[in-house]
């Protein structure tokens, strides 16, 4: 697991519990893992293994019960709630399984949202958004609403939205799960092509074996633990989507 690349995110003994008392469930059992800058890291594992919980903590959407996350050299625990919100706005891009585009906004307007959140003027944000939309081959659909786009097109808009503000961390949650094989492949190629940049860490949560080949590094989780981390997709040929008994 050694590498010469910079560590973007370091998770140390990260534990996450949900609920209290008798209803308490431990979702993560002391995760120790590093995410490297300039890499596309795949986080794989069966449903319920804790992948989404881990990326929620890494992205600052959930607080860990125990342990420490180091975000680009800054301990997450040192950030106040407000700083964490600012960190997400400035440094994190999200691609969701269900796209989560705002249905009332056109493709361009949706892409401009992260810039507007940061306080950029609307005309300037829309101008930049159009450019980024072009980079994902969606300029011809720029003025269409999400409801007028196919699933694959919506996900491309979502990728443009996640990248428009040049984040240092891109978190993609099952980006191909709602897509057919061809659209899924297109989306992963796009992430590979436009998202992976020097200094940017890209994490893709998936249990879709067809996309494993796009990862620089694959971290496998099971039952709230990291069970393997490899740079070679062939090493995880045993992977199964079944939840371990």
């Amino acid at each position, binding site marked *: 697991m050694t590498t010469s690349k910079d560590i973007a995110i370091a998770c140390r003994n990260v534990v996450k519990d949900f609920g209290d008392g008798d209803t308490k469930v431990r979702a993560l059992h002391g995760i120790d893992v590093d995410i490297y800058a300039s890499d596309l890291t795949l986080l794989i594992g069966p449903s319920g293994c804790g992948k*989404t919980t881990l*990326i*929620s903590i890494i*992205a600052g*959407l*959930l607080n860990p019960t125990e342990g420490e996350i180091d975000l680009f050299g800054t301990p997450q625990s040192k950030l106040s709630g*407000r700083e964490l*919100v*600012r*960190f*997400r*706005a*400035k440094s*994190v891009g*999200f691609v*969701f*399984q*269900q796209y*989560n585009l*705002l*249905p*009332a*906004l056109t493709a361009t*307007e949706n892409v401009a*949202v*992260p810039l*507007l*959140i*940061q306080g950029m003027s*609307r005309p300037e944000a829309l101008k930049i958004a159009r450019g980024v939309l072009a980079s994902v081959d969606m300029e011809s659909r720029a003025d269409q609403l999400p409801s007028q786009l196919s699933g694959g097109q919506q996900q491309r808009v979502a990728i443009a939205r996640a990248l428009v503000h040049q984040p240092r961390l891109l978190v993609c*949650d*099952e980006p191909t*799960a*709602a897509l057919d094989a061809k659209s899924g492949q297109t989306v992963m190629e796009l992430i590979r092509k436009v998202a992976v940049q020097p200094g940017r860490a890209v994490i893709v949560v998936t249990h879709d074996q067809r996309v494993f080949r796009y990862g620089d590094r694959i971290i496998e989780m099971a039952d709230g633990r990291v069970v393997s981390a490899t740079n070679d997709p062939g090493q995880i040929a045993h992977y199964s989507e079944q939840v371990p008994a």
Partner: protein
Amino acid sequence: MNWIAWKMLTGDRAKYFGTVFGVAFGVLLISQQTSIFVSLMRRTAHAVIDVRDASVWVMDPDQQNADEIKPLTDSDLNRVRGVEGVAWAVRYFKSLARAKIETGKFRQVVLLGLDDQTLVGAPARMVEGSLANLRRPDAIIVDKAGYEYLWGKEPIRLGRTLEMNDRRAVLVGICEATAPFQTFPVVYTRYSQAVRFVAGERKVMSFVLAQHQTGWTDEQLAHKIHEKTGLMAQTRPQFIRFVIGYYMRNTGIPVNFGITIALGFIVGTAIAGQTFYLFTLENLKQFGALKAMGVSDLKITGMVLLQASIVGIIGYGLGIGMAALFFESTRNVTALAGFYMPWEVAVGALCAVAIIIVLASFLSLRKVLTLEPAVVFRG
């Protein structure tokens, strides 16, 4: 972010109009029902409202309203005239009488007898004929709605006659008058004539109407008259409140209308509040995505409040407009004459809608602010 809030609100036209019309309907219910109640109660004081040229009403101390009248004596009039500060004081007669028209058809009427010399208390606006004609023998003036009650939709024709207490009365004019609580025609005549149109009693003077001298206020004069004569004396606004207060306390109208208004308020609140609350709930996932992308709770609060304000203002405008339209369109309906929307009701409805919107926003915000942004990762 305000622009995004506006787009989120108006993006789905059906939802947006549904929410706005929910608020508008609530405002309509509240303002229309309250206005009808206020207008109806105002009718109980119609005779007092229409007397604009006298500032103080003097009556028997046991009087409870403007309809159940214990008459005064002529000496009471002289005693009032003798009170310091009184510029003038005149008789005023008010009673119910039975009027029979040419066809034999009859109706109960409100009979008002004005001082023969001064005609104090005369109608402020004539529709047909002249007030001066009231000085002719047997002359009466009937209000416009009353003419319809008596003669139906027949064109107005002066010179028609009717009978009251077997005495002939000649129609010399048509006037505007505030509609009485009971939909009776209002008949104006001279005092000397009015007392002949009803069955004779020893005492017949219903009220003394007085005006203060320069340098006196209405309240000072009313107080002075009461102090010197022992009679009840009230300024015009006091007497209007007194009469309305009687009906509020002694009839089932406030309770029944109160229930209607309360139901209107509850239904209005439920519709307006629920539609906005549901609107926010339906957008919860979108708010979750925005929170995940780094929109602070403060900005989210601003967005929800902006949406609520837009819905509230437009909904209020539409609702109050529809209520105003209702009263405007029924303005010439005889049975609804005098029903209007007081400005206080419009202000009250605005306060009500503000409360509704604040409540709905508060409930919605609770949902939004307690929402874990990580919810966006749950498919």
